[in-house]
């Protein structure tokens, strides 16, 4: 699924709103997450997951082809960790906690 498909789906569900308004809503939500991360904030969406920024200090790397040492500048990398509820949804809720006693139907079963 791509963003325009997400927008279309929400637009179909909300015929009272303009398509461009839905587009703005979707953009704003992801932009707000991006802006937060850019400010160094953490974004915590219970049940869905958390976005954070990890700092990678500068280091001396190596060009794997020539073996030459190269300086790699420090950088900041966005990171996402799926929330428990989402992880459970993906694996069929309760599948692991009760795996031994009574297996739950998992995906594809």
């Amino acid at each position: 699924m791509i963003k325009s498909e997400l927008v279309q789906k929400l637009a179909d569900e909300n015929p009272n709103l303009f398509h461009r308004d839905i587009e703005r809503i979707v953009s704003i939500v992801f932009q707000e997450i991006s802006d937060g991360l850019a400010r160094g904030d953490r974004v915590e969406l219970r049940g869905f997951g958390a976005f954070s920024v990890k700092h990678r200090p500068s280091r001396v790397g190596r060009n794997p082809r020539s073996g030459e040492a190269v300086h790699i500048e420090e950088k900041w990398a966005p990171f996402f960790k799926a929330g428990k509820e989402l992880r459970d949804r993906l694996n069929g809720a309760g599948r692991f906690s009760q795996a031994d006693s009574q297996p739950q139907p998992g995906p594809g079963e």
Partner: protein
Amino acid sequence: MTGKTITRADLTDAVYRSLGISRNESSAFVERILDEVAQTLEKGETVKISSFGTFSVRDKKLRMGRNPKTGEEVPIEPRRVITFRASHVLKDQINDTHRQANAAE
């Protein structure tokens, strides 16, 4: 760098401030967007949001792990995990602001 935590309430506020819809409606949209992303991933499908990033589902095979406390070998069951790959736009935005903030210190 403010170092605070953004929650659903902040996303709702952002929607509410920029559109002429109620706070309740704004909150429902935020929820609906997150749920649609989750539902799509649940189906095993990839979700690609341009200039933000891509969420995808990966299948992990059964492997043997070890309880670090007891040293006991335990099987790690096959499972599905989510990976997020940030787009270049997002990576650049984060690196630009962090570099500027560091330079200003």
